[in-house]
């Protein structure tokens, strides 16, 4: 049996029962990366020696009776996460030779919880993308169908979990970048409330939008990791001082009476694939059977959300990328990829004198309206449900010719980033072997609600058990 196909919960129990060691678990994951990454291209850097050392240490600690929440569990980190002594590229050629002298706060927390870091995941450079095709290195492939995208920008992270290279992976979600790849790769992905998880040491894309999330196979796994990563950080002035609940303890509570909103602006969208519609309707029926009540809600400013997003986010991108001047680290700015240059130019333009009021300031005001939309909706319902993506995973190259088409794949996901509210994607079915995801959005700091509803659904519809057929990959490309 491939022990990397276990969930974190199962692996922890097996490790405690000494069915296998952390070293064996890590070696199995490393073997999977050797077997499949030639094709999948999920990883940019693998720290074989470091991982083996950490795994041995984990085994020793366990033998001594030391208990830590993630002791010996293999993780992959998105390459926006700064790791001390381990190359960090952000998926870009500009810092292809940058070795940070410090760990991001979330990395410190995962390590303190006993996690074993296997390596750094491929991604759309700087987080700019929804498919993984904007990596300066090479595009990552969807393990369910290698001619298709795994979603982005945390493309490598999703593929690493889905293909058994690790049991969990971290990502960032600025406008969908954890939830979309989770949805395309049959995983659970969380986008935290803005400020819930420290951004210190995570290479910034859009400072007031970036959230620090992660992907796992199941809801329970996801909630456990969240207990570790969430919480105030004195090194991040935008992190919120609010106690972190034991998210795993919210799971298993009945959801009868929970009010779930269906935003009419999302469901009337013309671009939704019929397979997505069907899968979503089936999920709604499952939830109704569990006692949830569905209510139509309105998010009236949905139609301007993308415009608002693509003014504010590039503005912050252009500012956050200004430090890459080649003086202290990295190469010169001419090495930036096409999409990065595009966003830098748009961003500089909307901030420039004479245009600031018409673009940036106006978009900032619209942002408040969109935030209010959600707050008003949450007066009437507990959570909001939508499909994660209007379409199943699309073909590699299908949207790269038209940046706007690529931007629109985030249409269900980025409004919640504008509002700073939390959201979750959970697997909800397949079409032609391609994974589909269901999105739940909640009020700020109410992630336990999202986990509660998603867990109840997952118990009835455990789609996570359908693993990708990786033998296909091995065989075809031997």
């Amino acid at each position, binding site marked *: 049996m491939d022990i990397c196909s276990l969930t974190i919960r199962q692996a922890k129990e097996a490790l405690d029962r000494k069915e296998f060691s952390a070293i064996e678990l890590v070696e199995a994951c490393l073997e999977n990366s050797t077997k499949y990454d030639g094709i999948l291209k999920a990883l940019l850097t693998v720290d074989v020696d470091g991982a083996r050392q950490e795994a041995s240490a984990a085994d020793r600690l366990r033998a001594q009776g030391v208990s830590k929440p993630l002791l010996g569990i293999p993780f992959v980190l998105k390459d*926006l996460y*700064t790791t001390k002594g381990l190359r*960090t590229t*952000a998926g870009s050629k500009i*810092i292809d030779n*940058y070795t*940070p*002298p*410090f760990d*991001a706060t979330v990395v410190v927390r995962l390590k303190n919880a006993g996690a074993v870091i296997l390596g750094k995941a491929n991604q759309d450079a700087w987080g700019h993308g929804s498919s993984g095709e904007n990596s300066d290195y090479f595009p990552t492939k969807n393990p369910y169908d290698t001619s298709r995208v795994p979603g982005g920008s945390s493309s490598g992270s999703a593929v690493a979990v889905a293909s058994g290279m690790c049991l969990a992976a971290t990502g960032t979600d600025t406008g969908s970048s954890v939830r979309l790849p989770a949805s395309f790769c049959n995983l659970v992905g969380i986008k935290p409330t803005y400020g819930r998880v420290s*951004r*210190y*040491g*995570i*290479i*910034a894309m*859009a*400072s*007031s939008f970036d959230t620090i999330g992660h992907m796992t196979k199941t809801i329970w796994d996801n909630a456990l990791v969240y207990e570790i990563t969430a919480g105030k950080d*004195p*090194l*991040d*002035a*935008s992190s919120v001082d609010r106690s972190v609940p034991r998210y795993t303890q919210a799971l298993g509570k009945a959801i009868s009476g929970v009010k779930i909103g269906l935003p009419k602006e999302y469901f009337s969208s013309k671009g939704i694939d019929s397979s997505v519609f069907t899968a979503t309707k089936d999920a709604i029926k499952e939830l109704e059977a569990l006692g949830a009540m569905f209510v139509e809600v309105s998010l009236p400013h949905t139609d301007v959300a993308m415009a608002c997003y693509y003014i504010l986010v590039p*503005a*912050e991108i*252009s*500012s956050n*990328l*200004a*430090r*890459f*001047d080649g*003086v*202290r*680290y990295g190469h010169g700015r001419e090495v930036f990829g096409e999409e990065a240059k595009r966003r830098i130019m748009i961003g*500089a333009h909307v*901030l*420039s*004198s004479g245009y*600031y009021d018409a673009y*940036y300031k106006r978009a900032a005001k619209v942002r408040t309206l969109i935030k209010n939309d959600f707050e008003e909706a949450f007066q009437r319902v507990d959570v909001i449900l939508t499909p994660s993506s209007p379409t199943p995973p699309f073909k590699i190259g299908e949207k790269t010719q038209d940046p706007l088409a690529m931007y629109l794949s985030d249409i269900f996901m980025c409004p919640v980033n504008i509002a700073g509210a939390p959201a979750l994607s959970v697997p909800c079915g397949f079409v032609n072997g391609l994974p589909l995801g269901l999105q739940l959005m909640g009020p700020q700091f109410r992630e336990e609600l999202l986990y509660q509803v998603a867990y109840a659904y997952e118990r009835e519809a455990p789609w996570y058990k359908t693993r990708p057929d990786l033998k296909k990959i091995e065989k075809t490309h031997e």
Partner: protein
Amino acid sequence: MNNNYTTIIGLEIHVELKTLSKMFCACKNDPFFAGKPNIYTCPVCLGLPGALPVPNRKAIDWTIKLGLALGCEIPLVSKFDRKHYFYPDLPKGYQVSQYDMPFCKNGFLEVENTMNQTSYNRMVRIRRVHLEEDTGKLLHAVIEGKKRTLVDFNRSGVPLVEIVTEPDIRSGSEATAFLKKIHRIIRYLCISDADMEKGSMRIEPSISMCRKSDATSKSRPGLDYMIPAYRVEIKNINSFRFVRKAIDYEIKRQRELLYRGETPEQETRGWNEGKGITVSQRSKEEAADYRYFPEPDIPPLRWQQSTIKTIQSTIPELPDAKKKRFMETYDLSDYDAEILVETSQLADYFEECTRAAQKLMPDTGNQDIKQYQEINPKSLANWIINRKINFEEILPARLVTQIVQTKKTSSIDKGELEKIVAQVLVANSKAVEDYKKGKEQALMFLVGQGMRTSKGKISPESLKKLIADSIIRRKEQE
């Protein structure tokens, strides 16, 4: 000389706050005495990817303190903004500063000046006092035969207060008087050493010449001049004594151009210390577009009125108020009071001395009262000022005692003195002979006798001198 032109001067002053740590990180704030380059650095002040700024509370409090001392309003909401430009000493490619919502605004400072032997007051309005971070420092060197520029980031991130005045100053001497006053206030508040040679205070005057307005002028109501057609900023003034020189030179340069019918260019000029001239640096015609927008990593700051009051209460008695009180309470002249309040240490020392003098007043008997009346505050002030007492070397009580002793001597008239000395020499001829033979102890014996005879009215030092001189005189006469 053509008197049709008014000199319009505004000042921009930067002051490094002497907090223990830097503005946005915990690095040591001590750039001038660092000894080696790049030893007080961290990911934040080096602008490494993923680093985040966390504001230094003390620096903010001290900025408010300074604003209050300068009569400013403190708006209850304030924020930081990003100011973008590229330069090797600016690691993030932007400076965290304040744009449209500074901590303090609309203050004033009244300055006394003398022109053509007439004293007058000039009210200088202060537009704003805000807080920002300092940049690194560039050093030009020749390394292996090649011209290179090196960057030292010890100064990067040091808290910097910026004070901007309205263009209310009308001459180089007014500017100097203003700067001396502000320098003194800053030192009284103990928030900075404000030392121009060490770079903890930097001054940039802006100078224009305008036609004096006539009845049908295009000037704004209330102005005594027409709005200037240009403005010249002077940088690189590295010492207090050159402020006046640089301004006077620049006024002369502009005046000559205007008399020739030319308009001086709007530009930045550098002061060349060696040649005593200003030199064109760059044209300010197209001001840089800094693309300001609110700093997303630092939430806006909201003050409670009570907090402002608390900060206000920590402001010590300031120089102007202290001077006024000294003149009223101690009957000091303007001149003497001005000198005594130059530093708070000297002013405090003076007041300690007046208290020490009070303590020495005898409870009973009036034989010595006349002497002690000599130690009134006025004469104390005189003594301290004219004898250039170094207050660090002598405690107040000691100084007062010394003065009393010295004055004791001068309260006996000369005739009396000579009589006493003669008496002593006659009554102790053996001691006189012993002293003539070289026995120092004999002199001290004679002094003791003199003290007894004069009942302590003469100080031992004076007696010693008088007796010794007297003996020498007699010896010569023999």
